[in-house]
């Protein structure tokens, strides 16, 4: 049983790690702000959820799991909000969503 | 563990000197304050590194588990105080920079000196 839990949790953690990695590569490689945000959002969603789930399995039924659940809930509310705020701020600053262009943050003031 | 200890100390030195460099070399006043923050943070790292005991845990007693090894609480207390001192200095420094910008219209040290020389 303990072994099974360990395996499950490690699979979750590894999968979460993989998503975080993909998100990171995406944020580096994508051409402009909106596509980068799109790639980075993988880290917020699948990455965070899987890692926290993996840690929850490790912790078992303890106070720590409840705290982790609270963190997860918090993340599910805040990360879309912050992505939204970021994108809307970018719009206000005049960066046009255009997948083809490479208008970068560094180029625009 | 030995390697990590040396590495911690060296990172302390490197970060300390990066901060120090920013303070002495940069001309922009806000950049100087940012450097000052880094400079002070490095010292925090020095203190906290020495508080660590291998196999120890945070110095908060647990009723259920006894016989634990605890890390040293004293440097942690000192650094709590030092962090507060650091943010206070930063805040005051920023207040001064804002006033300088209002009076001189710039936050670059060389331009301020030039204006004063006139």
């Amino acid at each position, binding site marked *: 049983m303990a072994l099974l839990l360990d395996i499950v949790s490690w699979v979750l953690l590894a999968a979460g790690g993989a998503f975080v990695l993909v998100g990171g590569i995406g944020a580096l490689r994508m051409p402009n702000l909106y596509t980068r945000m799109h790639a980075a959002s993988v880290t917020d969603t699948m990455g965070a959820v899987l890692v926290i789930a993996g840690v929850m399995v490790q912790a078992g039924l303890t106070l720590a799991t409840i705290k982790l659940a609270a963190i997860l809930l918090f993340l599910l509310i805040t990360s879309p909000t912050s992505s939204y705020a970021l994108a809307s701020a970018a719009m206000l600053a005049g960066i046009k969503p255009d997948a083809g262009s490479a208008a970068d943050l560094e180029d625009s003031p | 563990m030995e390697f990590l200890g040396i590495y911690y100390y060296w990172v302390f030195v490197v970060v*300390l000197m990066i901060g*120090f460099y920013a*303070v002495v070399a940069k001309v922009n*006043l806000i950049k*100087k304050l940012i450097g*000052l923050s880094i*400079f*002070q943070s490095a*010292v925090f790292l*020095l*203190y906290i590194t*020495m508080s660590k005991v291998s196999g120890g845990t945070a110095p908060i007693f647990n009723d259920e588990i006894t016989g634990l090894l605890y890390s040293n609480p*004293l*440097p942690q207390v*000192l650094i709590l*105080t*030092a962090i507060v*001192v650091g943010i*206070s*200095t930063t805040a*005051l*420094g920023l207040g*001064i*920079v804002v*006033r*300088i910008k209002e*009076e*001189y219209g710039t936050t670059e*040290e060389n331009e*301020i*000196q030039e204006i*004063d020389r006139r």
Partner: protein
Amino acid sequence: MTAPELHLPVLQVVVPMLIAPLIVLLRPQGLAWAATTAASLLSFAIAIQLTTGVLGGHTYQYALGGWEAPFGIALEVNSLSALLLLVLTGASTAALLAGKASLDRQIEAHRQPLFFSAWLLALAGLAGILVAADAFNIFVFMEISSLASYVLVAGGPDRRALPAVFKYLIMGTIGATFYLIGVGLIYMMTGTLSLADMEIRIHEVAEQRPILVAAGFITVGLALKAAVFPLHVWLPNAYTYAPHAVTVFLAACATKVSLFVLLKFDFVVFQHNLLGHDVQFAAFLMPLAVLAILVGSAVAMFESNVKRLFAYSSVAQIGYILLGASMVSYLGLSGGLLHIFNHALSKGTLFLAVMCLSMQYANLQLEHLAGAARRMPWTMAALVVGGLSLIGVPGTAGFVSKWYLLTAALEQGALGMFLIAVIVLGSLMAVVYIWRIIEAAWFTAPAEAPPGAQQMRTEAPTLMLVVTWLAALSNIWFGLVTHVPRELATTAAANLLRHLP
């Protein structure tokens, strides 16, 4: 000893510190000043009481929270701290009493409560350093006093005060952080923060290298805060553009408090534990002291703004104090410590006189002061008395400490001759720069004075003038009746040198 007297060391710090927040709430005009002056007077009274006790051969110890020294924080007042406490609280009180009119002019009424609150915090912070016996506690109070003095200096009406105070902040913080690194390294090797405990425990440390590095960091960090040449670059502008009353207060004591910590560490903690530390200390600091005297005085000779002139002279005077210390002898150290007291008297008087001048002269460039002696004879006379004391003319306080320094130099053999030459040369340069002011004030006709106004006597407000003259007279008093400061300084020197062979 009675029960309240036991609490005096902590009251010295806590009284101004706890009155400071209350000042913020005092909105009506003048009340903030009155309350601050009252608090400062109370601190002065406590300092006198402590000095009396110390002169009676007593050393005050205080365990905060009832926790004994290495575990809790201890306070200690001995003759050295008493000497500096007298200077500190006296300077603050004199500056406040005399400075009312000047501060009212320089600080807008609605900002005064905040300003005076910062004043008391600076006073409390400096007093806290002087009574502390714990290395980290010194850091905390150093920061209170530094932050408060930045606020005070930034109160200056000239916008050039702001870049000056920014430089002061950056260099002060670097100094404090260096000090913190040094304390951290010592703590790493000994496991203690109490100064008395360090003195004993560093001895047991086999590996000395971190201690050596710590000694370097602490000495350099404190030298920065004490404006030891060549780390003095923040001082002239900060003193010049600060409000006049603040210059009186800070010039008399702020840098000396850092010197006090420096001496405490180098002579007591390190001297006891590092082989040949006295030699290194002297080799490192004596050249700096000599350079400070020569360069500081030389720059002062060519400076045209009176406040800046005196600020550079302060750099030189710090050099004298350090020169005494770096001779590492009983006489030399006594002379240095005595010079802390006497320089505070003379420079305090001079800056008080400058404050009086500023009531009539908006511009303190020398050429604008032409004929000032006819307009403000009392002020200029006080300035001359202060100047004579700064030069070290017999019969004034400045002479006593210079005499000590000269006799100490005589003990040093061939090197002593050179030091004597430096001291004499420094004093001669002081004659020159004081003379320049006298020349401008007495022997130069005002360039284009409005007709009729030239002969008018427009003195500074009475209270300001009275305090200035009290300060001037104390220069003469302590030049003739030297018992109290000498006793304090010599006892302190003997105490600091207890680890020398």
